[in-house]
């Protein structure tokens, strides 16, 4: 039996409010691509931090190439040959790629040497990057390439990747997998943290499944199905959503040629976006982060009021220059991507967080802004907590004391409870456990069935395929035309994410013309993406 590259034995780590890892054992062989599967909150990140030296375990041992090691900090990990590519990049925006990489390596190299090594490594692995560019000019995908090159330059024996594909287009994911397979063939072991079942089945030869801090299974994912993996990950089959066909009603939201220059130099200009959302339909906007979603949503919610008059209409009313409060009066309710800090105030209770978007508990609004009826507020919050099954101590619990999923359920509940005519939500289930995610997506579909117009912006294609009726793609501040979900495929959407939709439109129009002349239905598009 060859010596395992990495062996974790009964690792335990406790925090004041939770046991993050409990008796976790993990074995990675040389050259193996080993997945660590688990939903949000299962303890994957903590385990990786222990391996990388940022966190010390309370119990258990770590063995590297057969030797017991005590890794005190990331520098020691790097010296051993363990390298990590983080989910949230450890990059510094104002300095160049080369300087960033230099900071992640050991001191004895000079900047010139590092720059040359970057170019060499990039060519070897087909990762296109210019070492002299300041990092803030890079796209998110390019930033990840920098992180990967930085890791590769340490000639790692073990490379850890934490949710690497959340910021990549499907095509970029394929390219990444080519790099990883090459790396593995050279003897490097790879630890691949993810919750995306189809990726793990495609890439990895071994998998350890974590749930609630404990190992629930070890398997070979290429021989498992999505259903069996899901069972190990959450203890049950993934919940199914019923998607009823619906005939959309009148247009509730209309965007006509929205143009917005960026607010700060790291932002994206919105360049002529037009779209329409009708009552009773869910329109999805797909796209990798950093392509203008943030800016578009600021303009829609009213947090950015610079839109030219006439470009945004809600329910027929020109809302381009209206503030959030005024838009809420028109029936718009919005769930932002950031929960703590934007959707809710962390240090206030749930009841008071109601006041961010609901006015029902305010009496005499004309006098000094109005009087807060606290008892009514708390009652209202309690109703929402019960209706949306939010796990919280009560209406007075501080927002920050809730788990990510529960807080999101509360915020979504707060907005849905207002009976909106137009419901906009960004990243509805990011960082949320599977159960809550299913509940939230179900709530979105219920809203739609009840006749609300819904706009969903998300980076998770699976999610959009599940809930949307029509799909747009946003790329570099421009919006593609929409495609009915039945005709959308992962490949096509992936191409559109790079902005390549014009050809498609031409072809589609040509097909339509062909249909009109010949009188035969054109071939329908591809298949649905795998759930």
């Amino acid at each position, binding site marked *: 039996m060859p010596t395992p590259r990495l062996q974790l034995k009964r690792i335990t780590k406790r925090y004041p409010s939770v046991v993050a890892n409990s008796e976790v054992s993990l074995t990675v062989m040389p050259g193996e691509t080993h997945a660590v599967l688990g939903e949000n909150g299962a303890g994957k990140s903590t385990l990786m931090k222990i391996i990388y030296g940022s966190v010390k375990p309370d119990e258990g041992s770590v063995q590297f190439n057969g030797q017991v090691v005590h890794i005190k900090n990331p520098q020691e990990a790097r010296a051993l040959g363990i390298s990590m590519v983080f989910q949230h990049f450890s990059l510094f925006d104002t300095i160049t790629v080369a300087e960033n990489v230099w900071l992640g390596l050991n001191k004895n190299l000079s900047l010139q040497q590092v720059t040359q090594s970057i170019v060499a490594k990039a060519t070897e692995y087909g990762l296109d990057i210019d070492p002299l560019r300041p990092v803030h000019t890079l796209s998110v995908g390019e930033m990840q390439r920098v992180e990967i090159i930085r890791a590769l330059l340490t000639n790692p024996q073990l490379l850890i990747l934490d949710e690497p594909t959340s910021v990549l287009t499907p095509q970029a994911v394929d390219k990444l997998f080519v790099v990883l397979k090459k790396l593995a063939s050279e003897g490097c072991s790879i630890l691949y943290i993810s919750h995306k079942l189809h990726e793990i089945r495609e890439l990895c030869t071994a998998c350890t499944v974590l749930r609630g801090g404990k190992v629930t299974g070890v398997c070979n994912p290429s021989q498992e199905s999505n259903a069996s993996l899901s069972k190990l990950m959450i203890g049950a089959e993934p919940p199914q959503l019923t998607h009823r066909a619906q005939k959309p009603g009148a247009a509730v939201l209309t965007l006509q040629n929205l143009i917005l220059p960026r607010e700060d130099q790291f932002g994206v200009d919105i360049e002529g976006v037009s779209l329409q959302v009708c009552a009773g339909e869910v329109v999805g906007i797909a796209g990798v982060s950093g392509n203008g979603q943030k800016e578009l949503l600021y303009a829609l919610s009213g947090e950015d009021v610079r839109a030219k008059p006439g470009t945004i209409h809600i329910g027929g009313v020109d809302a381009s220059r209206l503030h959030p409060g005024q838009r809420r009066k028109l029936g718009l309710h919005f769930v932002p991507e950031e929960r703590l800090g*934007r959707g809710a105030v962390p240090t206030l209770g749930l009841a008071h967080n109601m*006041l961010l978007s609901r006015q029902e508990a305010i009496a005499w609004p004309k006098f000094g802004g109005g009087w*807060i009826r606290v008892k009514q507020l708390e009652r209202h919050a309690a109703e929402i907590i019960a209706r949306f099954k939010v796990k919280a101590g009560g209406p007075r619990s501080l927002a920050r004391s809730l788990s990510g999923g529960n807080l999101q359920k509360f915020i979504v509940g707060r907005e849905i409870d207002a009976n909106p005519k137009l419901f906009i939500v960004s990243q509805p289930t990011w960082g949320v456990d599977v159960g809550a995610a299913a509940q939230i997506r179900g709530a979105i579909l219920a809203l739609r069935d009840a006749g609300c117009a819904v706009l969903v912006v998300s980076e998770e294609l699976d999610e959009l395929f599940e809930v949307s009726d029509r799909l747009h793609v946003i790329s570099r501040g421009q919006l593609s035309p929409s495609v009915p979900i039945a005709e959308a495929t992962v490949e096509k959407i992936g191409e559109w994410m790079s902005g390549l939709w014009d050809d498609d439109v031409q072809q589609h129009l040509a097909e339509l013309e062909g249909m009109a002349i010949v009188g035969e239905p054109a071939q329908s598009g591809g298949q649905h993406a795998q759930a």
Partner: protein
Amino acid sequence: MLKLEARPEPSKIWTYGSPVLALLITVLIGAVMFSALGKDPVKGLEMFFWLPIHNAYALGELLVKATPLLIIALGLAVCFRSNVWNIGAEGQYIIGAIFAGGVALLADASSTRWIVLPILLAGVLGGMVWAGITALLRDRFHANEILVSLMLVYVAVQLLSYLVGGPWKDPMGFNFPQTKTFESVTRIPRLFDGSRVSIGALLALFSVAALWVFLFRTRSGFALQVGGLAPAAARYAGFSSRKALWMALLMSGGAAGLAGALEVAGPIGQLTLYVPAGYGFAAIIVAFVGRLHPVGMVFSAILMSMFYIGGEMAQSRLGLTKSLTGVFQGLLLFSLLACDTLVNYRLKWRTRGGA
């Protein structure tokens, strides 16, 4: 070694206990300082903590000192809760005093007691104008309000110096830089005979109640605080940060100006170079030690007045300098900031190493 461990929920005990612990630490260091200066520490502490409260007259003096501190602190609490850092309350106090003094100087034999009203309103107006400059510069030019309001303090001091040494100088004042003593009719009415406590104390108490209602029961107060706690959430909710900025600065400027008017038309009775007594800065400490809460600030204002009176007594009876007051005040704030860590963190002994 000692390590800090985050608590899952802020500790209720320490939220109330931390100011007490901070006070104890300050007292301890104070005792050490007295000894180091060759003075009896017990006598020194007596000056600060017993004499100011040991009889009715002393209590009255305590209230006289606490009133301006409390009023200014109430205004500052609005600012700090909104994350607007108004450090120049001293300047707003001075300009409020100047405006009030200006109106008081207009009084003559024919004025009635009602002139007190315009005097106080003038004080409020003066403070608001001075704070308004800071608000304007931050609103229009994004200029940092800490630096602007602070620079304006120095400007206000010079302005006062100019007025009392020039156009407003008392012609019968032996050329001292001060105005004439105001007519008795302009004086803020006293509450009881035999004590210098004025209706200012009542105004202060009323303001405490008003602030409580504003902060905890009105939507405007709520909006201001969200702006300070989570600016992105305030933007999401549609709370105007401009409105919040102006409201916070005008309210605290007005409060500081009112305090200035009360002092100048009250205990001081004229405009002199000694009008700036540092209340604007001490009020910052009052606000923090009182946890920016209306009721808490009542207690911290009384505590800070004890430091002031203690300092004066230590000077007259023990021959120590009055600036001891500043030392104690600074120490108290330092200790409070350090002790506040215990609200959110626990101290634990952790042995080195792990796996």
